[in-house]
């Protein structure tokens, strides 16, 4: 086993695991970050999407040895929390304060059963962070790797467009 060091949601993290262990399993089982879900284990559904140095990846396809020194962001890192709590793994979270994207999902009905939601949020976060706007076709492309079986995608697209408009409005 080897020690791998990387940042998870801004917190320095160290794990001693076989290098070919999936990032998904390291997050869920070593770091107790179970917000990241497994839907297929073969990179088809996107439920396990996390951001690796800002880019969305299927964490079921990423061996942890590739993450050494990287910056990993998961759904647990999206919401802010009460002022007393930090966002590091293992720290008791304060009451969650949804970020604009999560709030938009809640408002438009973008989450139903919720199992695709963490991955969907991470793909959408990457899209918005890259400057993506409210254009429907562009949003569809950004989440094309994330399967949802509940919503028909309409309200997910509405949510991401709403968050994009809010951000544009906020900057104006």
């Amino acid at each position, binding site marked *: 086993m080897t020690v791998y060091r990387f940042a998870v949601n801004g917190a320095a993290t160290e794990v001693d695991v076989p290098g070919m262990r999936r990032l998904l399993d390291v997050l869920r089982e070593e770091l107790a970050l*179970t917000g990241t879900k497994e839907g297929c284990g073969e990179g088809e559904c996107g439920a396990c999407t996390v951001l690796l140095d800002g880019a969305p990846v299927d964490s079921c396809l990423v061996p942890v040895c590739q993450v050494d020194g990287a910056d990993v962001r998961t759904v647990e890192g999206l919401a802010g929390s009460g002022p007393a709590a930090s966002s590091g793994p293992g720290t008791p979270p304060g009451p969650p304060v*949804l970020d604009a994207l999560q709030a938009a999902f809640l408002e438009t009905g973008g989450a139903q059963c919720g199992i695709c939601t963490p991955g969907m949020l991470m793909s959408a976060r990457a899209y918005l962070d890259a400057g993506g706007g409210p254009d429907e076709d562009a949003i569809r492309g950004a989440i094309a790797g994330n399967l949802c079986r509940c919503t028909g995608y309409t309200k997910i697209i509405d949510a991401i467009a709403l968050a994009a408009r809010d951000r544009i409005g906020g900057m104006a």
Partner: protein
Amino acid sequence: MTIRTESPGAIVIQPGTIVPGRARGVAPLRREGPAKLTGAAKYADDLVFPGAWYGLTIRSTDAHATFTALDLDPVFDWSKVVVVTAADIPGDNIVSSIKSDQPILVPVGGEIQHHAEPLVLIAAPDRETLRAARRHARIGTDPLPAVFDPLVSDHEFARYSIGAGDVDAAFAAADLILEGEYRVGHQEQLYIENNAMIAVPRDDGGVTVHGSLQCPYYVHAALKRGLALTDEQAQVVQAETGGGFGGKEEFPSVIGLHAALLAGKAGRPVRMIYDRHEDIAATTKRHPAIVRHRTGVTRGGRLVAQDIEVIMDGGAYCTLTPVVLSRGALHAGGPYRCPNVRIRARATRTNTPPNGAFRGFGAPQTEFAAETHLNRIAEALAISPLEIRRRNVYVPGDATPTGQILRDSVAGEEVLERAAEASEFERLRTRLGSARTGRDGSGTIPGSALRTGVERVASGIGLALAWHGAGFTGSGEVHIGSVASIELTAAGAIRVLTASTEMGQGTKTIFPQLVSETLGVPFDDVEVADADTAFVPNSGPTVASRTAMVVGGLLIQAAVRLRAEVEAATGGRFADTYRAYASAHGPLRIDQRFEPYPGVAFDDATYTGDAYPAFGWAACVARVDVDLDTGEVHVLDVVAADDIGRVIHPVLAEGQVEGGTLQAIGYATVEEIKLRDGRYLNDRLATYIIPTALDAPRISTILVEAPFGSVPHGAKGVGELPMDVGAPAVIAAIADATGVWINDLPASPERILAAMANLTAVAGLRPGASEPGAA
């Protein structure tokens, strides 16, 4: 887009009357939404049980065989693991369901009935040991001849016959008789969370099972029977559930039993978490069906005779097949007045994995056939698809084939007109039709009159209409006798107690919404108890779109009683006095048991009477582009008009329509299970395809309200309705674009190209699959 209307058949609400569930002001946000959005929600595989072992299932690789031997290689140290066979089952080796035909595990010496059938279970402290144990266990079998074609099977699970009028005489007098055969294959529910259960042994010798499931009391009954437990010894707790769509209706009993058997033998918690491959390979699918129509019409397009035969493939065990078949048969004629009807339906056994519940529950199969057939009749008579429906759709006072008189809450006409109007159906159909006739047919597809030198893409628009019986079929609700409860705790909390599960559709939001409106308290003041059989009454399974209508209705009745009791004691308004009441009098619990809806009666023996207390109605218009060189279909946009009685929560209701519509579009275009020798070939997410965001059209929803008068809030349910109507609308649009009817779902590029070329040589891999265009 939401348009809510009062239909002609609507109940008149007196001014000032509070109708619980009527969306007023801003609808509340999804109750468990923040937990799902932050990753805090705990699904089964997120639950931690210290010391838990991992379990797996050894499955058959034969479709039909004798299980001759289990060989455990002595090289492996078997003391490190536990192995469970049928001999370890303390109770009946039966998965409790309608018939007692499915074993929990096939015993050595017993008969394997399908590929991927559970034979042996193993649990180990870690995954590596588990895999090593699996490698050292060998299964011996003696193959037996297998049956894959439901038409040649001699074993029937169920048979129904429904009839009205004199069909033969009516055919003799009809102006036109059209026949057709329609086929649909398996469809996978494809919830994104796979089936998962964790069993924890209890000190009293029983077991607690935590898992992903729709129906806690189904699993509870299965545990009691298979493990010989008392009510108290079997406890079932729903974890957050990542989608169900029927796929977690009856199957969780199987995986729950397996986890419990392993936990019992290991004496510690055991996790049974399926991966996607196992979930697709081994769990239930939508029943394949063959539906044959023979229909007599007048020149004016009025239906005078329908003769319909339905054959469903039940797979190897009965599961819920008789009920699926029943619903399929009852909806087989479509929502149309026809005085002379004969519907014969049967479901047979094949050596394929058992089929079971999936959103729509038999109706999507038969309504695809009915709608496609009606569209072909309209084409044969040169009547518009909209006009032929106007002439035949049920109106109040009409009788269904079971003799049910449709008295109120009849909104077929309204959903039809709303969808046609919003989609500009007639205008677009005329325009696309002229474009089609303008083509010179010089293209590359042999036999296709459509492809021209310059135009590769053909556009089309299609319409379909459907009905969906609300709640259980026939006397099902009376037999179940559900109970829903509201508790005012000693601490002054108001808590909803039901076994109705949240799986994304919004149970945990609409229940407190209905109760808080009735009690006159804020939404946030009403809690919802976890679906845990140790604490909640059996409010019935979370199926059949019955949760909002039936259980929601019971909760309103319970809230009315709670409010009256508290207000009688305190003399003040409930909202102002209930906390004081609780501290003075202690807790108060109201249990509300289902009472039959007045005037609703069904005779199971003769299949006559009120098959459903009410029907939901749905119309769908789809626009497609078809690539004439590749056969690819792009569904551009869809208008869905759904009458759901009353809209409790517009955002959640629209979400049901949008999601159900996309599942129906997947059914129509891409979703197909291929089989070889009774094994699913495409049993992975890389090969079983569902629509992505790029495949999905923009879906516009119109919610129509024709309330059901026998429940206080008028709601009829919304989950399944959109699943019935999307596929035939897409198939009609493809026909409008290309001139060919795809009678065998899905309308894959291969089938479309073959149909356009009038080829009959597209290999049908599923049992008895017909060739495209063969009808």
